[in-house]
């Protein structure tokens, strides 16, 4: 019986690492699309920096997943050779950049969650995961400050910038509850002390969102339907297009080294 539980925990850890790693990989790739296109030079550099942090965090998490898996796969195999349905990121992070306000709102929702969740996760009983979380937390705090500052500047800026942010909030709100999605994989890992219930931080997340929205003169959308599915490989139409671009070099030239 013990071995069954251990095996189950091992599989669930791998799945959790892939879910968590995919969030950062896909968001990092999305942000990298701004490189050379951002509205001002400082933002071009900032978004590329944040993208790099996200991809670095993804790389650590996916590497840990394949190490635990022990089937001779690399983190690059996971990033470049899986198909759309095998990606387990939440749908929020795959949403297209649209405009700068849209990107900032997406990032703000995500960063607020990341900081709060990583603060918990750095106490994981899985030492390697705790280490990655503590490391990522330091970076996510900078990301949070960046997206928060822009929320305030754009929201409480001109009528036009406020409208852009409000419209992005209205569009993206439906993807936010998936940040807190949990299933039996989470339940088992929570019992094992490896991860923590996302519910524990939900109140704090909403509190921060409300506070910044109020300072940014942004209205919280009325409760509507929420979209889930990413954690089980169900995605919006945008992920496939993103993967096509992200994976084409690795798939066209298998095992290429550079």
């Amino acid at each position: 019986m013990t071995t069954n539980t251990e095996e189950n925990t091992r599989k669930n850890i791998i799945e959790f690492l892939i879910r968590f790693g995919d969030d950062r990989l896909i968001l990092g790739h999305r942000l990298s699309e701004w490189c050379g296109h951002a509205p001002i030079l400082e933002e071009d550099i900032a978004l590329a920096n944040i993208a790099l942090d996200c991809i670095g965090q993804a790389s650590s998490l996916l590497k840990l997943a394949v190490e635990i898996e022990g089937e001779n796969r690399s983190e690059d195999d996971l990033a470049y050779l899986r198909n759309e349905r095998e990606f387990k990121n939440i749908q929020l992070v795959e949403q297209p950049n649209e405009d700068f306000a849209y990107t900032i709102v997406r990032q703000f929702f995500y960063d607020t969650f990341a900081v709060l969740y990583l603060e918990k996760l750095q106490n994981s009983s899985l030492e390697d995961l705790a280490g990655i979380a503590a490391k990522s937390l330091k970076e996510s705090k900078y990301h949070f400050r960046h997206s928060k500052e822009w929320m305030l500047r754009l929201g409480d800026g001109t009528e036009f910038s406020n409208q852009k942010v409000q419209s992005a909030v209205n569009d993206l709100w439906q993807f936010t509850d998936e940040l807190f999605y949990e299933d039996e994989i989470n339940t088992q890992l929570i019992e094992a002390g490896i991860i923590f219930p996302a519910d524990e931080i939900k109140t704090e997340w909403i509190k921060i969102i409300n506070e910044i929205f109020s300072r940014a003169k942004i209205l919280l959308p009325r409760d509507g339907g929420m979209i889930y599915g990413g954690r089980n490989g169900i995605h919006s139409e945008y992920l496939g297009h993103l993967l096509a671009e992200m994976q084409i070099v690795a798939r066209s030239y298998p095992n290429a080294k550079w």
Partner: protein
Amino acid sequence: MVTEMNVDKESLLNLLEEIEDPEIPVLNIVEMGIVRGIDFVDEKIVVKITPTYSGCPAMKTIENQILDILFDQGFPNSHVKTVYTPAWTTDWLSDETKSKLRDYGIAPPKGKSEDDFLQEVITKPVQCPFCESKDTILKSEFGSTACKALHYCNNCSQPFEYFKCI
């Protein structure tokens, strides 16, 4: 055969001090706190390193440089292991290291790494590494590398980089 008996960790560390940080060549990887320790496993040298930032693109170069320098010293089968605990912090930079940064034109990290993420952007003025004026402003918290922020000195009209406190 490599064991603690015939190779001294101290001299290996001295050897690794010859490796410059690829982004900040005025500092070496030991004083940067990137090298976390040396172990002997299965008669091989294992050098433990930790990234300054998760996505730091210099890590691969650093790893190769470590392996090259050990190879040249007659340790062909060495390993480099990346560790994450404890997470790298600017608190590890000594005063001497900080003054090297300043001389190089990068404002060194001020104070200890802070923990409250809800606080507003750095309010303490960062001193210009060129003219030492404190009349400077933050342009962006993200600079030419992940570890630096962009500042501007109102006194000498010089843009400069600040090594972020993490």
